[in-house]
């Protein structure tokens, strides 16, 4: 039995927290999705197909990659394979999230799984408090709406925003990753080790082109996390390292 005081300490996150946590994701997604919409139009993809990409695939990096490959005349099967490689990292993120989602009904997992992106995973997995279905669906829901809506708007009216605004909003997504990570580094230098080690492996693989590009992220994540088992002292905290 868990003493009552411990239960109270971990606030259960609700819809409101989910929507607020989603704001930086929305700010980043909308303009990037607009760029996707516009770009897909220039590759001669119909409005319906362009929106379908965002509505049913919902994977930013993969969608942009697909446009590149379509433009280069690569066959659909090969594009799917490349997408698979690029998305293997979500295998790790999904597994990591699973550790924190013990009490959630299985049916909800079908929806939560669909919304696991780099951004929503990063926001959710380092959010303190108890993750709930409401929180996750609210966070992923507005991110999804921004992504799909941005695609539609971008296809129809182009980027509309001045190029400098558009690009700086896109940079906001990397700023968001940073702003999620840094406070964790402040709490524990083990985090710095894990992140820096993973980043270094990525740079090494990418710079020397050791692996096809889809592999770099997944290898960096797996290798650095495994190194963490060896080098990071287990601090025995339940939800964090």
């Amino acid at each position, binding site marked *: 039995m868990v003493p009552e005081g411990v239960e109270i300490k971990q606030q259960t996150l609700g819809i409101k927290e989910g929507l607020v*946590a989603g704001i*930086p994701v929305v700010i980043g997604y909308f303009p990037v999705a607009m760029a996707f919409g516009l770009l897909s139009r220039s590759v001669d993809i119909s409005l319906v197909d362009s929106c379908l990409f965002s509505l049913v695939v919902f994977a930013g990096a993969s969608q942009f990659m697909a446009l590149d490959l379509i433009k280069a005349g690569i066959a659909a099967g090969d594009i799917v394979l490349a997408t698979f490689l690029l998305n293997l990292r979500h295998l790790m993120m999904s597994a990591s999230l699973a550790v924190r989602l013990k009490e959630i009904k299985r049916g909800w997992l079908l929806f939560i799984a669909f919304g696991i992106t780099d951004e929503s995973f990063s926001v959710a997995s380092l959010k303190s408090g108890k993750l709930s279905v409401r929180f996750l669906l609210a966070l992923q829901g507005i991110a999804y709406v921004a992504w799909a809506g941005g695609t539609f708007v971008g296809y129809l009216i182009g980027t509309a925003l001045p190029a400098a605004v558009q690009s700086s909003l896109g940079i906001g997504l990397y700023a968001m*990753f940073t702003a999620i990570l840094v406070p964790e580094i402040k709490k524990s230098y083990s985090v710095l080790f894990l992140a820096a080690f993973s980043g270094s492996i990525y740079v090494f693989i990418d710079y020397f082109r050791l692996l096809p590009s889809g592999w*770099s992220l997944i290898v960096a994540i797996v290798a*650095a996390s495994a190194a963490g088992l060896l080098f990071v002292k287990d601090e025995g905290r339940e939800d964090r390292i």
Partner: protein
Amino acid sequence: MKSYLPLIVGMMAVTYLPRLLPLIALSERPLNPLLRRFFLYIPYTALGALIIRGAMEAEPEMAVATLAGIGVAAAFSWIRGGLVTSVAASIIAAFLILYYL
């Protein structure tokens, strides 16, 4: 205009399944403590690699603004915390650089 439906469906499958299977498989059973630690390290290692990837994949004309955006976010979140303010500050910094350089 060519229909991309087969491609879209294929991409959906290879995107959704990696997101779904671990969640289904792991959320109900107790995990080996070592494996559990491994998975709890993933957010940090994923962020490290994603941030670096962002910096490395930036177009040459965007590189300075991207680095500045990341730097400002790091400084802001170190000093003040707060996701939204940090992101807003870095977007403004990136914009100023793109606009004036």
